């Protein structure tokens, strides 16, 4: 029976490694956890950093993280597939995440979301044909009073600590225009 590729024996993955920054972060965080618990406890933070480095979490990244932290690939796969913020599929250069949950829904989030779908020519979780933008409908981002709200991530770049709030047709158009030009409109974020 074919096994999931991530269940292979732990070994180095040729051509891929965890960055020195990740190693430094591991060294920094390791003593924060009790003896014998740090390896597993670091599974989430290291997976997230590895995604920032490699763009998404595939079987190879799973193997790298498992080998470094002394975990089975099965455990790391279980974690990687559980959490929404870990991309199992390589996203476009920009990952536009629009909240449509109740607070945003009531004040027009689906109009914003439909506009994104139409302009990008994609469905939920789809990537535009030019590979530039992946559009994802997300759950509540805890900014309900200032919705509709979106968040943007840039692949293989440090995270963008901003929300894009009070979205309407004009503001989402400006965001989509900027992304098409190859830049994140941080001036529209807060």
């Amino acid at each position, binding site marked *: 029976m074919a096994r999931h590729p991530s269940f292979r024996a732990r070994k180095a993955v040729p051509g891929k490694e965890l960055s020195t920054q990740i190693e430094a972060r591991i060294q920094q965080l390791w003593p*924060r956890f009790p003896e014998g618990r740090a390896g*597993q*406890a670091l599974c*989430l933070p290291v997976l997230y950093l590895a995604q920032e480095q490699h763009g998404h979490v595939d079987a190879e990244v799973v193997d790298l993280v498992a080998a470094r932290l002394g975990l089975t690939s099965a455990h790391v796969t279980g*974690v990687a597939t559980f959490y929404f913020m*870990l991309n199992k599929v390589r996203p476009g250069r920009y990952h536009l995440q629009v909240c449509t949950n109740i607070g945003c829904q*009531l004040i027009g989030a689906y109009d914003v979301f439909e506009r994104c779908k139409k302009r990008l020519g994609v469905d939920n979780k789809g990537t535009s044909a030019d590979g530039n933008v992946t559009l994802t409908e997300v759950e*509540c981002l805890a900014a*309900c009073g200032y*919705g509709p709200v979106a968040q943007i991530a840039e692949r293989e770049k440090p995270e963008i600590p901003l929300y894009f709030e009070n979205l309407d047709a004009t503001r989402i158009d400006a965001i989509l225009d900027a992304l098409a030009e190859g830049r994140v409109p941080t001036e529209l974020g807060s």
Partner: protein
Amino acid sequence: MGLFDVKIISEHFDVPEARTLEYFERKGGYRSARKACGMGPEAIAAEVAASNLRGRGGAGFPTALKWSFVPKDADTVYLVVNADESEPGTFKDRHILYWNPHLLIEGMIVAAVALKVRNAYIYIRGEMARENKVLQAALDQAYAKGYLGERIFGTSTSLDITVYRGLGAYICGEETALLSSLEGGRGWPRLKPPFPAVKGLWGKPTIVNNVETLANLPWIVEHGGKAFADLGSGRSGGLRLVSVCGHVNKPGVFELPLTVTGRELIEDVCGGIKGGRKVKGVIPGGVSMPVLAPDELDVPFEFDALQKDERIREVEVRPGQKFDLGGNRTLRTMAGSGGVVVMDDTTDITQAAWRIIHFFAEESCGQCTPCREGTGWLAQVAHRIAFDHGRAGDVDLLASIADGIAGNTICALGDAAAWPTLAFLTKYRDEFEAKVRNAHRPKGAA
């Protein structure tokens, strides 16, 4: 100066300098932490007990009682801050983290002294990248000043605080799922008992407290538990952060007395409904909580009142049959996480209900069959009703699935999906039935 002017937590919201340790200290910050270090655990616990402080994460459980469950002879006790705010409609903790991170740190020091904690963790929502940065900067400042780490403030107390980021899973706001996640696994809830206070993080006694709960502690230490209790109402002490969203003129986060009613909240605090329209429904404490109809809004948004006030209808499984909460209790609603969602009379209740149910279906962790399968079925049926493809019997089907989930799962997510579903059906049944009656039928169908 009225009651609305008293502020415990939100006084420095919207003041950017409030994030710096210097500003915070100038305004009296860290005085309570120093005082707590000299008070000793029993004295702090007594003040918290006298304060009637109740957990602000959703359950409203008395904080002192939760603390008292920690075994007295425990060698290691962990404090974990639940900063995984994800309940739709709730955005208050994010304000504390962003505007006043030192208040949380100070509250953690107070709790750590009371519980004899050496290592504490803040489990912050992964999406809150901005707040994570602010919080980390505040922690760095506190460490640099000697307010965290070895022998804080030069006393014999030592405390380390580590920030741990979630990665996008609503269920990790449930305290046992949070612990599973913090240990580096999937966010799967655990059966209770044992409660985390007895067997929590890595099997050790662990207190999980909400951000707002802890942020109240410095005030309690400074002014005494009784003063805090006097600010409150009945068995609930203090004020409360309420976040309001939806169809109001002035949405936002407000720190209010617990005696404020839903109607006062909408009219006096939030400037009324947009466009002068009428209110149709209000969710009082995050989407897990049963919705209130317009004639139920004169009840104070206080923990006990929302559960017991007879002006609020009991949730039914079907007309005439009350939903059984277990132990002969019926369900009205609850104050939950303080996330208030206001819907005006243009709202399609069936679509709002579907979106809430869809959320729970997305976020079910998949451990328990009634929730994993049931929330998916609920979402399918609610979707076809809301979008004009409902079938005869769908309204009863929705209620029967919800009733089958409630009470039959490890954690409260199953209930959180079932309760609002049943409440929407109890209070807006006509709308659901009209949708089904007027649904598009395929050719040839009855």
